[in-house]
């Protein structure tokens, strides 16, 4: 036979449990818009039944409800997918960002671009070939040449600025990784303390997951959560965060439970004076391929931008070589002005080195001797005696130089000239490079768009599982509230019943 007050105890448990469930619902509603919040679920279970004897056998009598656990609606597999796709998405996003910047530096196709400067440069030579004795046409060539070199300098400067920006961003990201690692480590400590005490600290876990999500934007992240065997009777976990290449044999653990293995914030600089990535004990970090903004920025800084710089330098060199080779064979209006270079690397003017000067986009300069005296622009062939008369109306050299716009024919007759540009003309070489850059940006655009869709899908999956639905919470609210009212009714009923018992022996 069970106790008379058994019903009261049962109702108390019900009231208490429904109240907690109501509070959890309130907590969910309150955090409906909190970033990284996971919906919490009150797991109510029936308490251990009482055993009551009844007619020669025992019956289990339900003893009410209790709140067993409060769990998070979270799926580790979806988390892993989300982080992996985020790493890829961020990689392409960062790549797209940097490459688009390079694309904007070129400003093609427009009327203020290197290609239009080149076209104007060649046509100025063609104009000059018609009127080699005309000082106006000479000045135009000189002006166009300076516009062209200015464009080269501008591109070289902006690209090198961009490279420095990317390098600075890499340093910031290293600091961020360390900071995330530190916060994850601190949370690991707090969570472990709670878990050892038998608690399941859901909100702290949310914070930790949110940090790992943020970390996955910078580098690819893998989380390994294992049961801590020291505590056999409780649910205590060890939490390990591994960054970079998953298949790497090297040790890539950023946080192992309560130890933080941080990155070197002031790493040794490489040949170009740029920072590399290494652990604090100087072992290099294997970041894996195409994962995270850090890897994208490193690739941009170490490959994409230098490749692009090399192409622009090759173009500058190609123009300088072709123009100089022809210019050296000719002479201007001043006696003895033959044989000088049109473009120099800025270190000499009248004296001419025997080899064609090596120039880059940053150093290509109009020969200062020509800038001060446009009559030194070679337009015709050097007279046979080399010193006496200058044939004012001979525009053959100017014509040969202007014909460089469409090909290399003018250079074929020059002995000892090796053409370093592998395209049918200088403009074609440049156009091919621009197209190549365009393909890279387009690839980044498309990959980014594709990854955006995947991340959206995974986010939806995650949101579908972990997100707060107000409709659902309102339904739960009604549900728990009604249960609470019912349990309260039960207490009232018990009270009535007990009153009946109490009043049984009383006589008037």
């Amino acid at each position, binding site marked *: 036979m069970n106790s008379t007050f058994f019903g009261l105890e049962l109702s108390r448990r019900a009231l208490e449990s429904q109240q907690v469930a109501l509070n959890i619902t309130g907590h969910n509603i309150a955090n409906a818009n909190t970033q990284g919040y996971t919906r919490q679920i009150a797991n109510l279970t029936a308490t251990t039944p009482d055993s009551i004897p009844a007619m020669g056998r025992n019956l289990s009598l339900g003893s009410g409800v209790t709140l067993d656990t409060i769990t998070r609606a979270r799926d580790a597999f979806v988390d892993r997918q989300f982080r992996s796709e985020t790493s890829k998405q961020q990689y392409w996003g960062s790549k797209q960002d940097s490459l688009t910047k390079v694309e904007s530096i070129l400003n093609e196709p427009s009327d203020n671009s290197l290609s239009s400067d080149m076209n104007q440069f060649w046509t100025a030579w063609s104009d000059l070939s018609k009127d080699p004795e005309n000082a106006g046409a000479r000045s135009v060539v000189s002006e166009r040449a300076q516009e062209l070199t200015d464009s080269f300098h501008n591109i070289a400067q902006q690209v090198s600025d961009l490279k420095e920006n990317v390098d600075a961003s890499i340093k910031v990201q290293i600091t961020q990784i360390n900071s995330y690692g530190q916060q994850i480590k601190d949370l690991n400590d707090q969570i472990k303390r709670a878990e050892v005490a038998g608690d399941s600290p859901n909100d702290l876990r949310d914070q930790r997951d949110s940090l790992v999500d943020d970390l996955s934007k910078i580098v690819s992240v893998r989380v390994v959560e294992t049961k801590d065997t020291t505590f056999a009777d409780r649910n205590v976990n060890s939490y390990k965060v591994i960054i970079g290449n998953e298949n790497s044999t090297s040790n890539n653990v950023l946080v192992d439970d309560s130890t933080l293995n941080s990155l070197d914030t002031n790493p040794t600089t490489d040949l170009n004076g740029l920072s590399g990535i290494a652990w604090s004990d100087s072992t290099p970090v294997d970041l894996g391929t195409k994962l995270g903004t850090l890897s994208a920025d490193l690739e941009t800084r170490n490959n994409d931008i230098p490749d692009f710089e090399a192409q622009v330098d090759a173009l500058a060199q190609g123009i300088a070589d072709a123009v100089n080779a022809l210019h050296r064979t000719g002479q201007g209006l001043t006696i003895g002005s033959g044989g000088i270079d049109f473009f120099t690397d800025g270190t000499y003017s009248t004296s001419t080195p025997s080899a064609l000067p090596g120039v880059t986009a940053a150093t290509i300069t109009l020969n200062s001797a020509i800038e001060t005296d446009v009559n030194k622009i070679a337009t015709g062939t050097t007279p046979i005696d080399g010193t006496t008369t200058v044939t004012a109306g001979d525009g053959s050299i100017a014509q040969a130089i202007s014909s460089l716009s469409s090909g290399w024919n003018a250079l074929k007759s020059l002995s000892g000239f090796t053409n370093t540009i592998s395209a049918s003309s200088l403009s074609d070489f440049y156009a091919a490079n621009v197209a190549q850059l365009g393909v*890279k940006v387009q690839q980044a655009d498309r990959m980014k768009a594709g990854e955006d869709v995947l991340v959206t899908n995974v986010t939806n999956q995650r*949101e579908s599982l972990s997100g707060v639905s107000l409709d659902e919470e309102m339904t739960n609210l009604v549900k728990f509230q009604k249960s609470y009212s019912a349990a309260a009714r039960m207490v009232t009923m018990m009270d009535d019943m007990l009153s009946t018992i109490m009043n049984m022996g009383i006589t008037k």
Partner: protein
Amino acid sequence: MRITNNMLSQSLLRNLESAQGRMDQMQNQLSSGHRISRPSDDPAGIQNAMRLKSNISSVEQWKSNADAALQFMNTTDSTMGDMTSMLQRVRELAVQGANGTLATADRGAIADEVDQISTQLKMMANTQVGSKYMFSGTATDKELILSDGSASQANGQDIKFEVGNNLSIPVSVNGQTLFGLTSTNTPTPTGMLSTLNTLSSDLRSNDSTGVSNLLGDIDTTINNVVDQRAGLGARINRMTAIQGQLDSTSTNMQDNLSSIQDVDMAKTITDFTSQQNVYKAALSVGAKIIEPSLVDFMR
């Protein structure tokens, strides 16, 4: 699938953003008129577009060169036309002067006219187009015949204008051949002017035989000028043909460039309008979806 409020609002936001992004792109295309505004819009297209632009810039330059060449050659042609008629007048005068019955004073008058024509021809030899002496070869800053009648600081090199890919056409007439000058500097006039000088002095000295003997030389001179002019005429024809070709090439290239980089207005405007409708629809649906939840229906 469980749908949460966040999912609804996020997907609405995403759809609005992407609709707006497409509208922005089309608006850019419409206002600039260009389909390609950056290399990544169409890498293959931009390579063609840049090649075409560079070709168009060359062709435009060749067109302007051809115009200048025609101007040069037409001036030369008309000068040579004047020369021919002047030399024909000389021939008439020579025939007149060879007439044995003519009085000395009349011969003197004829000689005066010959001298004047001679001076005129000397001036023509130094005709300038712009600042160029057009019969002086590439020595365009030097006169063909100096004032003392001696020749010549000029050379017989052709002035060539570039009017095509590796195509340069001589636009000048060799003045030395035209006036029958020896290429080296000589103190006394040679060729055409020397013939006229001899004619003049023969006339003044009443040497009618000498005058009639000169008729053959005068004919040779006239024929030489006519031949040179015919050669120039052929080149003018060729240049005019090239100019026409360059015009149509330029038009074709502009068409090609336009088909590569220009936006199809009708299509884009239609697309834009339908995109606008999509955007409006998304907005009005969004306004209805986002607002209500169960909360609104509970007391």
